[in-house]
């Protein structure tokens, strides 16, 4: 069964304290892994897509990496505005597009000044 698990569930950091979020997945034939950011009361906002092991993508203080079994979202010198829930997701097997995504439960990040 296709499955996505994120850890930790919650993470508290001091401003400037770097850390990593983990997303492990079990899927038959990976067709991309997506990272989204979700602020309270809002819909998820797209951050990155990774397609193959070894791929990396960066955006400001965030860098996403992918291996054959997991993905990491590295946060370097975070700021309070980085506080949000970070979701990862993979398409289900057999879909020709990403309309059907399996999401992890998310990691809620709080960055204190």
């Amino acid at each position: 069964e296709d499955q996505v698990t994120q850890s930790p569930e919650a993470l508290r950091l001091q401003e400037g304290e770097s850390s990593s979020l983990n997303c492990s997945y079990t899927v038959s034939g990976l067709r991309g892994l997506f990272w989204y950011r979700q602020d309270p009361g809002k819909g998820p906002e797209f951050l990155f897509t990774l397609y193959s092991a070894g791929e990396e993508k960066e955006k400001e203080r965030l860098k996403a990496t992918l291996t054959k079994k997991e993905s990491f979202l590295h946060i370097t010198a975070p700021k309070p505005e980085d506080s949000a829930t970070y979701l990862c997701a993979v398409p289900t097997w057999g879909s020709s597009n990403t309309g059907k995504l399996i999401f992890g439960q998310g990691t809620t990040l709080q960055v204190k000044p």
Partner: protein
Amino acid sequence: DAGVTQSPTHLIKTRGQQVTLRCSPISGHKSVSWYQQVLGQGPQFIFQYYEKEERGRGNFPDRFSARQFPNYSSELNVNALLLGDSALYLCASSFTGPGANVLTFGAGSRLTVL
């Protein structure tokens, strides 16, 4: 450019009632997907529609139904509401085609069932 718009933003219903949620996709997007997000969990897939046809359905009971209109907007209907249907209902639109495509989400409709 307008993003994905959903209405209503918040609504309160009682058990047994019916609810209709509406979604307008980004201009040019022909696929609409619906997700349910219970507090503290990730979104869970309900439906995907493309060109007015259902292309996928998640593990939800028949009380949940949806449709897509010629202008690609969509409605999600839930009948005989249960307390457990309380959630944020998210609509997402995307291009379709082979390969992975990005979903763009709306802000959601927050449903509370009393």
